[in-house]
């Protein structure tokens, strides 16, 4: 193509357009002004003004997880960039493709002196700061390199094990003009994401699974980011294998399916924690065996033969010893395993293991009885009943999150978005805004606690003014509930610094931002509020007072194995 003379800022926005970017979340500042100025001539890109850079980063993350496409956020240099850090770390832990663009002080000052590295106003070494929490980061040093760098950034963020990429953009390069050549070429000799599984490993895995008496599938977040849910379902149904998910894998398998046994882990479903330990063969897909999922690794299925499919070779053998590793794309690996399996086994309609699963299910997950108390379990079961299947639910972090994991059944991939790895309070609300932007036709609900919601509540302004209506359900117990629970259980009820009290008034708070607020005192009132939120096009906050003494149970106490779970489901 013929070269075009243009500024760095224009080259950047044009590159984003070529990547199909239609929305970016951000806050401007001095060192990124040329980019924002260039937005005037790029009307195809909608800029959504967050009220704190952390909100912009989480919104980009929510956008990415809901859509499967990279989410983009902008911030200025210095404090703007450092405010993104929590959001970037969060995306990194949960393997979410976020592109963060930060302004930087100019490489050269007015008298041609070098400015980066001289502690200029609002200068922060954001490359140094984000190296351990990004998949890749790079500082632009010329206008000419912008097209290929942006191509690489999107390619790195979205392929292989997805993750955040930060691009640091010095102000003088934004303003400089040069001839820009467009290219689709990506030249990354150090980065070759795995694709097809090794046929020999697939054969071994299929043989093991075909002979298994008690196979269990453990699906992690990689099944969702790898869009491998359909393939997972076919393998599970062929083998009649119960499917457990990790917290990040919630939604990879429909939780109302007969073979679904729920989440494993510290606050896992007792059914999943129990059956997993009884398995003779485990097929784990797209999971990093986090400590919250496995509990004490010494008692984590020591007898079971383990097949581990992961696109990240470094995850294999990192936390758990594996018998058959398969480094590949989850979708391709599961399809290949299925192809091998159907040559060896007939689709089962019954097995002693299936009978065992059904018995355990009746025993450990009894049918819900009618319950109208304002407690998390009936609340979340009611919510599931009211919300359409395509509703995207985000959560905050803490009790609200674990109750959601236990009691809110997710039916489709990418409709449950939560901060699993970093455990970032304040993630859910801005993430819900991002998810709504990505999927404007889906209802979006954030299941929140009062402690978490307060941390990013300022994004109500963004939600209302930018007309991105979402609903926040505040399970309001007036305490930092999860830590209060730990103080109750492990620190002899010495409640230090966990009491939040009765402020703010969430109805007034919502109204102050132009949103609508409801306070409910019973399940029927809750139902009315949810129905009216679903019908309205206004951001809604539903304040649900619950007891501050409510625990999340069952629970595997820290350091214990999954077999040492306490409390009733």
């Amino acid at each position: 193509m013929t070269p075009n003379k243009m500024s760095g800022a224009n080259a950047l926005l044009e590159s984003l357009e070529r990547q199909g970017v239609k929305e970016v979340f951000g806050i401007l500042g001095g060192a990124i002004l040329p980019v924002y100025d260039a937005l005037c001539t790029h009307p195809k890109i909608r800029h959504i003004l967050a009220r704190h850079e952390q909100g912009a980063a989480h919104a980009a993350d929510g956008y990415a997880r809901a859509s499967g496409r990279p989410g983009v956020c902008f911030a200025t240099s210095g404090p703007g960039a450092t405010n993104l850090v929590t959001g970037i770390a969060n995306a990194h832990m949960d393997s979410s493709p976020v592109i963060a663009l930060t302004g930087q002080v100019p490489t050269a000052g007015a008298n041609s002196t070098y400015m980066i590295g001289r502690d200029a106003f609002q200068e922060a070494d954001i490359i140094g700061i984000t190296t351990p929490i990004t998949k890749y980061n790079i500082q632009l040093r010329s206008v000419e390199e912008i097209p290929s760098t942006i191509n690489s950034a999107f390619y790195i963020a979205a392929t292989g094990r997805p993750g955040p990429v930060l691009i640091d953009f010095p102000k003088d390069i934004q303003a400089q003009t040069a001839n820009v050549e467009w290219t689709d070429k990506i030249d990354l000799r150090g980065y070759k994401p795995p694709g097809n599984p090794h046929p020999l490993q697939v054969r071994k895995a299929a043989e093991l699974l075909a002979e298994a008496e008690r196979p269990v599938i453990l699906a992690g977040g990689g099944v969702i980011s790898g869009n491998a849910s359909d393939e997972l379902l076919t393998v599970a149904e062929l083998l009649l294998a119960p499917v457990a998910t990790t917290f990040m894998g919630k939604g990879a398998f429909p939780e109302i399916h007969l073979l679904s046994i729920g989440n494993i882990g510290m606050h896992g479903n007792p059914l999943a924690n129990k059956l997993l330990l009884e398995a003779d063969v485990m097929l784990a897909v797209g999971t990093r065996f986090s400590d919250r999922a496995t509990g004490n690794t010494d008692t984590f299925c020591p007898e079971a033969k383990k097949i581990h499919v992961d696109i990240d070779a470094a995850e294999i053998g990192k936390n758990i010893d594996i018998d058959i590793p398969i480094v590949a794309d989850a979708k391709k690996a599961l399809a290949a395993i299925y192809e091998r399996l159907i040559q060896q086994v007939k689709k089962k309609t019954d097995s002693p293991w299936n009978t065992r699963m059904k018995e355990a299910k009746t025993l450990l997950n009894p049918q819900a009885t009618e319950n109208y108390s304002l407690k998390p379990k009936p609340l979340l079961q009611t919510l599931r009943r009211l919300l359409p299947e395509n509703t995207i639910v985000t959560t905050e972090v803490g009790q609200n999150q674990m109750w959601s994991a236990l009691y809110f059944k997710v039916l489709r991939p990418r409709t449950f978005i939560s901060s699993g790895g970093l455990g970032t309070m304040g993630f859910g609300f801005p993430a819900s805004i991002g998810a709504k932007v990505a999927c404007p036709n889906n209802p979006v609900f954030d299941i929140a606690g009062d402690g978490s919601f307060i941390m990013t509540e300022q994004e109500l302004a963004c939600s209302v003014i930018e007309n991105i209506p979402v609903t926040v359900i505040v399970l309001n117990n007036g305490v930092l509930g999860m830590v209060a629970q730990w103080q109750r259980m492990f620190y002899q009820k010495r409640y230090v610094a966990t009491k939040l009290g009765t402020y703010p008034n969430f109805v007034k708070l919502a109204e102050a931002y132009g949103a609508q607020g409801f306070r409910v005192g019973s399940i029927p009132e809750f139902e009315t509020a949810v129905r009216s939120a679903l019908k309205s096009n206004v951001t809604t906050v539903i304040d649900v007072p619950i007891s501050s003494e409510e625990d999340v149970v069952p629970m595997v106490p820290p350091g214990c194995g999954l077999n040492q779970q306490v409390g009733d489901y």
Partner: protein
Amino acid sequence: MEKEKTQVIAALVENKPGVLHSVSNMFRRRGFNIESITVGQTEQKGVARMTLTVSGDEKTLEQITKQMNKLIDVIKVNELEPDSIVTRELALVKINVPDVKGRSDIINCVEVFRGRVVDVSTESLMVEITGTPDKIDAFLNLMKTYGISELARTGLTALSRGVKSLRVEE
């Protein structure tokens, strides 16, 4: 605890700013030990070579290679087989000279170790010595008797023997 073992790793990396930082930062963050690291340009344009001496149990060593491979700017990682590599280190040593006899004793030692005297003053000698780290350790041990006033070691570098080469395909 599994047995600790030392491993020499050669890595080809992009020769650009920040690459050494991302490698060393990964080691720090994951709690891996680096005993030595050397970096230099290669015969290929834009490619630098890092030679790392690392230690840990088998699982840790496997993780080190995998985590290095994950870094985008790391092009190739090779665990070098101890039996089929040539390893070298260079040391510059400043040694105190007590008297004329001491001086000639030191020079004799240097010759035995195939080192070279590169600077002479009335009270000191500077010696350049190349070899495996063990050989350098042995030399330094001998010199302790006279007193080492300054020491600079490059850290280990290595190449595997034979026709097979670690290169970036072009």
